[in-house]
């Protein structure tokens, strides 16, 4: 059938692309271009009818299926090559774990979503809200021999969990960074410090200023006028410029009630804050040990130096003493 079709096309020299339902007659030439528009249209339609007939004939040679809606024809792929709209998507990059698992031959096993909880004798979720073995459900954790005394086991478990979550988050970011390097970032993820458009292939666009940033710039510009922007004509909706650079206030030093007391209160507050913040770190043990060690070492050094300098004077004496003793033997 295809052979026949090809033959037919050759004889009539009409190029047919059934995927796009197009027919092209490259050999047609007007004998004389009709000056009258109606005639031109008529001639074009005649030729068009011919071509459409060719397409329809070709369509009827294709395999068909009957449907309630009508006759359905299976079309081939288009032969006319047309450009893509966007580049080909890059395949997903395997994560570090996936690479490792592949190397070691580790395979994923499906786990049940719900697990039997022995403590409550019910079925519970493996992960998430109201899960099995949740720390918040257990009133008492039995102590073990290895436990450190004075440590809260609940907060310890909590900390460990937070650590695990943090580590996973770090790994995820690392994997995404690797993917971004190759340009295989998932379409919905954006890795950026600033507002880049997520669509397309991550093209950079100038960042729009926020309302506050614009206000800041306006304030800076206003500062250059003689009045510091005080008498500038305001735009509708423009807020008065924040006058910056005057934060320090000097309350009266003389003691008294109200404002007089303010200075003392301020100082108290700062002191209290400092003390309460570092109350447990007032003594830096490491530093203290270092200091004492250093001191001791210095002391010993000095002592050795002194002994060395004094012994040099006594050396000859010692030697003579030694020698004499030898002789005595």
């Amino acid at each position: 059938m295809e052979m026949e079709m090809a033959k037919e096309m050759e004889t009539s020299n009409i190029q047919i692309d059934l995927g796009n339902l197009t027919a092209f007659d490259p050999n047609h030439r007007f004998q004389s271009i009709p000056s009258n528009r109606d005639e031109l249209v008529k001639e074009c339609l005649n030729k068009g009818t011919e071509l459409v007939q060719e397409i329809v004939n070709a369509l009827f040679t294709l395999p068909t299926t009957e449907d309630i809606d009508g006759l359905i024809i299976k079309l081939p792929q288009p032969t006319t090559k047309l450009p893509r709209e966007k580049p080909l998507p890059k395949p997903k990059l395997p994560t570090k774990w996936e690479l490792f698992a592949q190397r070691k031959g580790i395979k994923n096993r499906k786990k049940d979503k719900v697990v039997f909880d022995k403590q409550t004798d019910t079925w519970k979720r493996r992960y998430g809200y109201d899960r099995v073995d949740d720390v918040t459900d257990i009133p008492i954790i039995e102590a073990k021999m290895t436990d450190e005394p004075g440590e809260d086991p609940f907060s310890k478990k909590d900390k460990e969990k937070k650590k695990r979550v943090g580590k996973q988050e770090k790994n995820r970011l690392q994997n995404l960074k690797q993917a971004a390097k190759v340009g295989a970032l998932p379409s919905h993820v954006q890795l950026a410090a600033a507002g880049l458009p997520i669509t397309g292939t991550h093209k950079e666009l100038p960042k729009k200023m926020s309302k506050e940033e614009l206000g800041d710039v306006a304030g800076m510009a206003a500062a250059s006028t003689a009045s510091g922007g005080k008498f500038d004509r305001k735009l509708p909706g423009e807020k008065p410029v924040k006058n910056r650079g005057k934060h320090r206030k000097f309350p009266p030093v003389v003691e008294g009630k109200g404002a007089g007391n303010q200075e003392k209160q301020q100082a108290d507050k700062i002191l209290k804050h400092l003390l309460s913040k570092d109350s447990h770190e007032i003594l830096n043990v490491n530093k203290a040990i270092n200091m004492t060690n250093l001191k001791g070492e210095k002391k010993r050094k000095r002592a050795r130096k002194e002994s060395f300098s004094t012994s040099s004077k006594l050396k000859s004496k010692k030697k003579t003493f030694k020698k004499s003793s030898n002789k005595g033997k």
Partner: protein
Amino acid sequence: MLKVKTPKNHRALRELEKHAPKLVENAKKTLILQGTKTSGVLKGLLAEIHHLKKGNSIRYTRKNDNIRPFESGGETSLEFFSLKTDCSLIVFASHSKKRPNNLVLGRTYDHHIYDLVEVGVDNFKPMESFLGDLKVSPILGSKPLFAFIGEGFENVEELKHLKEVLLELFRGEVVENLNLSGVDRVYVCTAVNSNTVFFTQCAVRGLKKSGTAAPRVELTEIGPSMDLVVRRHRLPNESLKKVAMKTALDRSKKKEKNILRDAVHGKLGKIYIPDQQIGGMTLTSDVKGLKRERREAKKNFPASKKTKLDSP
């Protein structure tokens, strides 16, 4: 420090996935817009193109004073609009003394201009003017046929280019299965001379309808009909073309399993019922329909509903 930004809701996620590059692409969307000055002819034409491509085109109606597709720097906002609307076909209309009734047809690749063809529109006849002698109107959005006539489409570079762009603009979605009753219109493009193309749309009517043999067809002009005079054109960069023409070569089709087709019964399917998974059963607390109040109410007055039903 890098931050991972992901869409906050599922609707946004879906939208982003629509915009993402795909192995098998969906139909290209068209952006229809105009410059500072537009003639009545062009406005009518843009409206008709928008109508013909309904559902797959976006019409901008404001004036755009900084779009000059052929000049360097004049395509910036066009590319931005393409990115914003996710359109890769562009129809831009402008009217000036130097180039009256000017229509720029362009394509983008990765939201950058890929190629451009500029045509002047002459002898425009809108669809309305053909309404009188219309017997059957084609369905909106049906897959059109194309008839390209004339050696100009092969010999002249501009026309060859225009042919490809016109095909891309009007062909619609690539389909695998075609309903024969949906074959109802054809775009007839004739290369009249080396720079003019007569373009029109016709309705297709089969004179003899039978299941096996091909019917004889008849065309009736339904418009829009016009002459397109090619002015400027810009072909794609050779290296860019190479990249853009890449296709997914090994598009392995998924094997159809457990489906049989029978002449008598039609489509038949085989169903395997997997083992019942007790582990995946919903917990009692998961059932949203059973609110606590209602459950308690039921406990307290178990027959209240029944009596209500019985009373009338």
